[in-house]
């Protein structure tokens, strides 16, 4: 099939950027979306033009590197699917596709479709861990963890940190990302010691990075490739309130 692409091109962080139109010819339905872009890039390179810069690595939906807004939807609108796992069979011949980077102030564009998500790393550095230095851990079966809690912790821990939740949110809120980590840790016995400080520090860092507030529209949950539930935001709000009260007493 043949497609028309409107792709965001931006030379560097300070450039204003614009949409440029390309034709993608002889696209196979078995290609992934990124493989389709690879083919377009090969073509550009052969013509001596600069290929479209975009981030990707594992190409199996787990590393969280790829970050494309496709036709206005983070990762392209297929349920529970990253852009690298989106296949061209979900498009039809002759279609026009618009491709943009994540757009949020805390994710500045580096080039074309590549953005800087260092703000997510800094939020984890603020407290998204258990302070268990290597060595000295007790036998792994010493503390039983109920299966429902463990399963729920895993539901949250599955977050791949791609940032689609931020890109989809009208406020560029990072609540889904932060709440996934806060919930994962607070559901497990190992996370209890630092439970209050963790949520306070992570939320504070999130605010400092310039992420917006949450108005619970649920657009983040809708695009999340790992289907992280909005319930975790409610859980984090409760954790935050609990921590505030405890820190006052």
């Amino acid at each position: 099939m043949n497609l028309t692409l409107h792709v965001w091109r931006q030379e560097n962080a300070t450039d204003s950027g614009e949409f440029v139109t390309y034709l993608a010819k002889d696209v196979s339905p078995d290609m992934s979306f990124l493989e389709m872009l690879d083919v377009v890039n090969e073509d550009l390179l052969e013509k001596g033009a600069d290929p479209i810069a975009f981030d990707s690595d594992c190409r199996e939906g787990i590393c969280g590197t790829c970050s494309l807004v496709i036709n206005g939807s983070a990762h392209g609108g297929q349920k529970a699917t990253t852009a690298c796992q989106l296949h061209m069979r979900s498009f039809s011949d002759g279609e026009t596709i618009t491709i943009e980077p994540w757009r949020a102030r805390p994710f500045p564009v580096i080039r074309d479709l590549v953005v800087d998500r260092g703000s997510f790393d800094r939020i984890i550095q603020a407290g998204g861990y258990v302070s268990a230095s290597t060595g000295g851990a007790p036998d792994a079966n010493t503390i039983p963890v109920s299966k429902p809690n463990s399963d729920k912790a895993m539901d949250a821990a599955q977050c791949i940190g791609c940032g689609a939740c931020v890109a989809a949110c009208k406020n560029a809120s990072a609540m889904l990302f932060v709440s996934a980590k806060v919930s994962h840790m607070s559901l497990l016995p190992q996370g209890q010691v630092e439970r209050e400080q963790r949520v306070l520090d992570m939320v504070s860092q999130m605010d400092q990075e310039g992420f917006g507030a949450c108005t619970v529209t649920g657009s983040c949950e809708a695009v999340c490739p790992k289907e992280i539930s909005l319930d975790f935001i409610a859980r984090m709000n409760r954790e935050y309130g609990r921590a505030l009260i405890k820190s006052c007493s």
Partner: protein
Amino acid sequence: MKLDAKIPSGPLDQKWEKHKFDLKLVNPANKRKYEVIVVGSGLAGASAAATLGELGYNVKCFCYQDSPRRAHSIAAQGGINSAKNYQNDGDSVHRLFYDTIKGGDFRAREANVHRLAEVSRNIIDQCVAQGVPFAREYSGMLANRSFGGAQVSRTFYARGQTGQQLLLGAYQALSRQIAAGKVTMFPRTELQDVVLVDGKAKGIVVRNLVTGEISSHAADAVVMATGGYGPVFYLSTNAVGCNVSATYRAYKRGAAFANPCYTQIHPTCIPVTGDHQSKLTLMSESLRNDGRVWVPKKKGDERRPQDIPEAERDYYLERKYPSFGNLAPRDIASRAAKEACDAGRGVGPTGLGVFLDFQDAIGRQGESTVRERYGNLFDMYQRITGENAYHQPMRIFPAVHYTMGGLWVDYNLMSSIPGLFVLGEANFSDHGANRLGASALMQGLADGYFVAPYTVGNYLSQESPADRPSTDSKPFKKVESEVNERIDQLFAIKGRRTPRSFHRELGKLVWEYCGMARDKAGLTKVLKLIPELRDEFWDNLNLSGGPNELNTSLEQASRVADFMEFAELLCTDALKRDESCGGHFRTEHQTPDGEAKRDDKNFAYVAAWEYKGQSRRPTLHKEPLAYQEVKMTQRSYK
């Protein structure tokens, strides 16, 4: 070059204990005077960087990804082995050790493997303490499953995302050290070369992938945890950014490269669809716990799988290996699939595929149980192929997955360059000629959490921080200018072909002549074809843009240039090893029923190659494999 593995004396099961006591320590107050560089932030790199930071060293950690959380360890699905014996099914440190040695077809170093089995238990403890949400039973205790090459259940897992959860555990520990100021992180930064001063590794030269800036970093020791070289085949289950450049450039600076021909072809990947394909996707080995592998008995049978009656199906793994059945080790399962396809019984549009069927498991346990265990894998399969594996069997085919070879290291994980340590998949030490499933995560974390922190300290105790060179010194400036020169050379070619087209062509050559089956004629031929292709690369490469910007074509070209040289080393090793063992299958050497036939008399050694210059052949050094505890036998899974 003289290889000394520095294996401690004494009984096998006491070597590590004894060695830990013999290793020299650095006083806590002195640790902060040392600088350590860690290259790579996967399981081995992140765990080493975090642990060295916790100990008090100043660490700089580098990765090419935009965040350390994205290293390719994240994609490991099935699980991590540990000799916990929580299932009371007869597991022990010795059994894990033995299974790993046997799985590696008696080509691994005994002492290293025993240590791996010992520390495997600490890893699970450490990860649980970090909050890794491993699967649990209703009792609240940890759950286990079985993996290939073992008859006990010792694999711990977190759904089909075990690598992700373990990496996030290590990443979070690393993040804590970054926040504490003990680790400085350099994402989107790629190693260009290692700098040696008086024969010791004292730093690295890197390229900032956003600005193109070339810079030097000095340290008292360099730890390389940069993964394997699977993408030398172009198509593999590795991430598209994975590359051999770091280890290959260390090799060119004097680190011996060991057993490059030991490559692992994973039996259960989604088949190739066309030339556009950029990577292959693995379907976890854990699926073989419940899935049954089969092909039609009849050649060219084009009926739908559900229309092929039971009597006309060949469950070839169960037939050939009744005691291990569908859980035969990877190399064996892959070759069996190739054999079926070569015989014209392959399935799917290309004929390069076999079925992995869950109908029996669904009938026995219900769809919901299967969904709970493997739901994410079934979903992934559906996204890629458009087929529903609950209703029809998956189609799978072997693909390059892991590389057992790597830089040669001694018992301390130090390469033949003093001060250069190599961890995880990047080294050669623990898996012999074939790695068992769920052992890569184990090794990465063993090296990073529990081995390197001791052995790097031992090395540092004999180095003085006062001798750390300045990055303005001559050796650094020289390497920097060589790095810049190489980049200029790539730009100066101004040919017509893209880096990717060269990579794809190289990969096809290596896969065809040095893939699942190898022989003398093919290897001799490919050793002529690779240099020809390399010459064309240096004559006809086309790059866009310039060096001082984010330039993906330059990144690719630079990696492909190293693959072009490395491929030759890989095939040279494969030609030299005139026997079959594990993943290295020379068709000249097989038993009457088609199994790998080793030649222990002539090849029970580690092949460590020393670089001798651009136009000269590398020199082979042999480290004999002396087995103290294990008797080498014909590997049997029947």
